[in-house]
């Protein structure tokens, strides 16, 4: 019985962690769906959004190292902390500006190029953005706190104790992340299904050429979709940054999203969510049940093995579109 309860607790935590993976994976899906580009820079966008948020919040002067070196000054901060809401708003605007610049400076020049070329362009973007973030906000670790409650949920612990005689651990941050992720998916679905722009997005996703032929601006759609990916990156950055502090490892959360994409499919928003949940629960349960027998630390590779096996049977992922090329 005790083992069963532990397994249930592990599954619940895996479920919550899976939602955090799905948040990162969503950004990849949105861009791939609308433009066929696998955005290698999505992980760095998470980092950049979190860096910008915490930098603004803490009143850090952007490019202070550069300014100090060039002008011989010793500027470190504005001396004030920005209200969180304003910092969030300005960060969102920064991500919108980034989306516009990406379209203007990179994508515009690569229209009709092979997807591999676009993919390589996003690799360049990732490294540029990482260095730019470093130059703009500094590489030191920053504490991110926007008031999200963290730590064990007493309610869940007490309730499960009353029910089973064993109090479950659930992190309050993960509960908040689940709620936000659910709202995000609902919002994206409503936007996609019921707004004119959403319909245009779906048209572009279905067939670029056909969408262009009915007057839909591909470039405008790209700006919109990169902006939404920027918003998703900001949300993922808030939750992951709150857990670990904002530092350059944050971009590595993308590694957690890749198996989710392989499992859920690159073109499906529900796929990203379901894939995230399956990977989250699967890796935690595997580590709980098999980990002790093989020395632990199974989470990093287990997700990829599952995704690889899945690819063999369903290459397009659970919810991805099957690619049929007629000749």
């Amino acid at each position, binding site marked *: 019985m005790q083992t069963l309860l*532990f397994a249930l*607790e*592990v599954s619940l*935590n*895996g479920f919550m*962690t899976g939602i955090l993976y799905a948040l990162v994976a969503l950004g990849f899906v949105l861009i791939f769906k609308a433009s066929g580009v696998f955005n290698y820079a999505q992980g760095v966008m998470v980092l950049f959004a979190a860096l910008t948020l915490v930098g603004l919040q803490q009143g850090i002067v952007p490019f*202070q*190292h550069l300014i*100090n070196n060039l002008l*011989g000054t*010793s500027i*470190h901060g504005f001396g004030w902390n920005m209200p969180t809401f304003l910092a969030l708003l300005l960060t969102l605007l920064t991500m919108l500006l980034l989306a516009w610049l990406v379209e203007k400076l990179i994508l515009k020049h690569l229209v009709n190029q092979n997807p591999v070329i676009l993919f390589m362009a996003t690799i360049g973007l990732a490294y540029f953005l990482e*260095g730019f973030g*470093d130059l703009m906000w*500094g*590489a*030191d*670790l920053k*504490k*991110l*706190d926007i008031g999200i409650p*963290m*730590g*064990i949920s007493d309610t869940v612990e007490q309730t499960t104790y009353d029910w089973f005689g064993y109090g479950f*651990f659930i*992190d309050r941050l993960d509960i908040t992340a689940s709620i936000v992720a659910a709202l995000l998916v609902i919002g994206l679905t409503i936007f996609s299904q019921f707004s004119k722009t959403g319909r245009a997005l779906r048209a572009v996703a279905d067939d670029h050429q056909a969408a262009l032929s009915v007057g839909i601006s591909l470039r405008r759609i790209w700006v919109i979709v990169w902006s939404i990916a920027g918003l998703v990156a900001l949300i993922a950055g808030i939750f*992951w940054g709150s*857990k*670990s*502090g904002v*530092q*350059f*490892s*944050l971009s*590595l*959360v993308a590694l*957690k999203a890749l198996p989710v994409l392989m499992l859920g499919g690159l073109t499906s928003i529900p796929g990203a969510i379901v894939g995230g949940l399956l990977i989250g629960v699967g*890796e*935690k349960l595997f*580590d*709980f049940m098999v*980990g002790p027998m093989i*020395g*632990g*630390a199974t*989470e*990093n590779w287990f997700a990829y093995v599952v995704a690889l096996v899945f690819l063999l049977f369903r290459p397009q992922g659970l919810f991805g579109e099957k690619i049929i090329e007629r000749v």
Partner: protein
Amino acid sequence: MKVRKLAISLATIISLVAPPALADLVIPWLSYRTGPYSPSGIPAADGFADYFTLLNERDGGIGGELVKIIECETGYNTQKGVECYEATKGEGSLVYAPLSTGITYQLIPKVAVDQIPMHTMGYGRTSAKNGAIFEWIFNFPGNYWDGASIAINHILDENGGEISGKKIALVYHNSAYGKEPIKTLEKLSEKYGYELTLIPVDHPGLEQKSQWLEIRRGRMDYVLMWGWGVMNSVAIQEAANIRFPMENFIGIWWSGSENDVLPAGERAHNYKALALHGVGTDYPLYDDLKTYVYDKGLAAGDGSSIGSVLYNRAVYNSALLAEAIKTAQEMHGVSDITPVMMRDGLENLSVTEEVMTSWGLPGFAPPFEVSCENHGGDGLAMVQQWDAEAQEWNIITGLISSDKEVIDPLIMEDSTQYAAENNITPRC
């Protein structure tokens, strides 16, 4: 336009023909100011550079010779570290300090061939303490096995010498570095009867939910941590999340910087880590650093990390190397020493309280001596504890010694095996 082109061409030719203006004492620093481990790499690189800048500015270098630091960026990547070594070894490099156990392992055979000493202060291959076999490697003043034993001794002190039946978990970076203390902790568990649970965390350690659920389920009494980078801060957050008592959570000296505790805020209060040296800036050395380095705008960084744990560690590291250079100069009667002479300096290093006072760091670290047989010092350390409200570390114990009865045979066994595998004849 033609004149400009001519001037550029001339400048290029002159720069190619003229010999580089090399300082006489060259020390490469394999830094990582970029990448996932940069929050740890930056203060260390700054501290190392600032101390030698002080010596150059205040004393005109060491023994009249200026010190030149060549910083080479590794991003904490082992392959890049080896490339940095290959790129800088021909610059007259006296000694290497890679600040990475992975890079250290790759360089151990190389430095022996090139006859350049390497100092891995509190990291790297533990059995390199046996100088009879590892002629070119020095890991004073303490090593990982000392650290493991000191942590257990601290727990013994807290429990009146009786820890039989206690549950102790080791949360470790799943790498050569993180695995270093396992053998020692297993031996010590046989001796003291505690129950050891090994919990690995894969790089980079952003997600540790499984590990901390296991600790919660297992109702561990103590958790030891061998982490680095973001793994540390996530572990401390997760420990706080499960309400693990922070005073029972003890990190190695590489898991005890401000970066590790600040993200958890006040919830990191009372977290402990081992300390190879003192904390803060309350030492006369900092007055000199202010006068000769910071106020003159010569600091390597933006000043935000001055006095932090990792900055202090790098200052200590550079002070030890500077003292070894001085020792080598005195031994050989020349100021422009070679790497072989530097090895002699390191091997005859004597760090007394008087020496540390002369650095401006009285009482900063334990005194120790290095010899041909002992390249690792005496293996003494303290315990520091985080005060979240004051946002500072406090040293809470005196010097704690490691259990030589357990560690010395392990060092002998491991180093002898290395010697047999590499056909090395013990030299002393």
